[in-house]
């Protein structure tokens, strides 16, 4: 077995191993360290002699490392505690994972990794590492940061969890909905990093988006009665369905009105629509509404034949349940398509007057497009040039500059 084979088994087993060990040791950091030691050992020993049952080998080895760590720790503290920990640890950690319990434990692992005491960066890193089974190197590549930065975030995150005494359990009913929202927003941040890379020279990083979709599917399987989980999954599937058409042969962005819709991933659209139907059970939340907007696009044969009135209505609903200047800006774009640029410009100018999106390249981008449609070319050009100066993604910037130049 080679490195890639070890990583493949690890991908499948990591969340369950860390979850089971955290349950038995009560110590998230210790469980994660022990699991990492086991996979490090596997990388050395499996290429020489592959185990008959790789998953069982990983679990058994991680369990032994966890017990070693408890022994070392208790030896420093209290001889009696050592005996107690020894007997409970040995008898409680079975070779096999308890199938009745493991789903709740994996879910608890997601809640701990996305706990509000953690910094947003630590939540993302821990979720990808312990739930997704990614290495620090893979996470660093995904977020375009140095490997030591990722390692530091994970180490600090584990210390924060321990210091705050975060229990390994599902959040109490009263906090459940809010904490689930926290998990969803971490998955959404990961997805967004892949679907609109905030920096770097590539517009899309589908591998990063894939990790979010995979985690959202897991969450949807573990929390099937939560509409917003299906809403987020639908949003991710429907957005990712357009990836194949979103970049040209040279990697430059292709905007919605120029996309070859035959390149859209129709099985992803079908999965997205199915998830949206499940999200609609009790009225749509913010993710469900965004998914519903994506679904209108996915079902339209062209930009002209898109039901823009419905999109305006959906943005109005989204603005009520999750008010934000970005939603307002998107509503303006939809209004421009449904009723013309004049009305849309009024919405954008209100946003500017209230200074609700300072420093964002999106406001001048939209304003420039609207002015261009109104025939106010010099003003449009100035706005697009301003947008290009504010934009951090090189690919998007060159599109803005090209559009500005076309107006002179």
């Amino acid at each position, binding site marked *: 077995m080679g490195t890639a084979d070890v990583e*493949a088994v690890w991908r499948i087993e990591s969340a369950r191993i860390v979850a089971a060990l955290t349950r038995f040791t009560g110590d998230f950091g210790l469980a994660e360290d022990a699991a990492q030691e086991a996979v490090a050992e596997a990388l050395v020993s499996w290429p020489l002699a592959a185990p008959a049952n790789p998953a069982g080998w990983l679990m058994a080895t991680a369990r032994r490392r966890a017990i070693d760590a408890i022994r070392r720790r208790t030896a420093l503290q209290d001889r009696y505690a050592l005996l107690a920990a020894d007997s409970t640890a040995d008898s409680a950690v079975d070779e096999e994972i308890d199938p009745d319990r493991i789903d709740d434990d994996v879910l608890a692992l997601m809640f701990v990794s996305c706990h509000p005491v953690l910094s947003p960066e630590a939540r993302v890193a821990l979720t990808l590492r312990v739930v997704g089974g990614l290495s620090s190197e893979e996470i660093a590549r995904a977020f375009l940061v140095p490997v030591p930065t990722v390692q530091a975030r994970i180490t600090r995150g584990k210390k924060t969890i321990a210091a705050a005494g975060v229990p390994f359990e599902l959040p109490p009913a009263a906090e459940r909905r809010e904490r689930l929202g926290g998990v969803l927003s971490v998955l959404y941040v990961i997805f967004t990093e892949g679907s609109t890379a905030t920096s770097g020279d590539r517009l899309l990083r589908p591998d990063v988006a894939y990790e979010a979709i*995979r985690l*959202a599917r897991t969450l949807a399987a573990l929390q099937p009665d939560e509409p917003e989980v299906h809403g987020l999954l639908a949003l991710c599937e429907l957005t990712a369905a357009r990836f194949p058409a979103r970049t040209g042969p040279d990697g430059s962005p292709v905007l919605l009105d120029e996309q*070859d819709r035959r*390149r859209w*991933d129709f099985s992803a659209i079908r999965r997205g629509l199915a998830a949206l139907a499940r999200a609609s059970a009790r009225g749509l939340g913010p993710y469900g509404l965004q998914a519903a907007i994506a679904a209108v696009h996915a079902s339209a044969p062209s930009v002209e034949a898109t039901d823009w009135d419905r999109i305006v209505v959906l943005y109005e609903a989204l603005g009520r349940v999750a008010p934000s200047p970005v939603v307002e800006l998107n509503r303006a774009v939809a209004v421009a398509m449904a009723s013309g640029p004049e009305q849309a410009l009024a919405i954008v100018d209100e946003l500017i007057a209230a200074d609700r999106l300072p420093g964002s390249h999106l406001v001048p981008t939209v304003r420039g497009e609207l002015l261009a449609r109104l025939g106010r070319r010099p003003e449009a050009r100035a706005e697009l040039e301003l947008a290009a100066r504010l934009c951090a993604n090189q690919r998007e910037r060159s599109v803005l500059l090209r559009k500005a130049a076309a107006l002179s």
Partner: protein
Amino acid sequence: MSKYLLIMRGTDESNAALMADIEELMARTHRFIEETVKAGVLLAAEGLDDPAQGVVVDFSGETPVVTDGPYGETKELFGGFFLLDVASKEEAVEWAKRVPAAPGSKIEIRRVPGSDEVPQVGE
């Protein structure tokens, strides 16, 4: 990340061995499907009817010719599939090792290219 099709290829003997304990087969298949769903990798799965019940439409001649019965002379016949969305070929292989199967059967693993791999004009 890629999609892979796990194509189940069984012989008469291996199919008979699987069908001998249909309860056991259903329980194991259910477990496998549940695991792949919870891992976020399962996109589709189906099992096929007896190959003898199949029909072949042959385009060798000028007009399509329809014949009853199994496809070709091969000993191992396509009996079902799992479509997985996984991080690597190695992960597809690892899942394939966990598929409920009987001695004598085989699983062929084929990558499903994305529509972004279809060459665009200008490439």
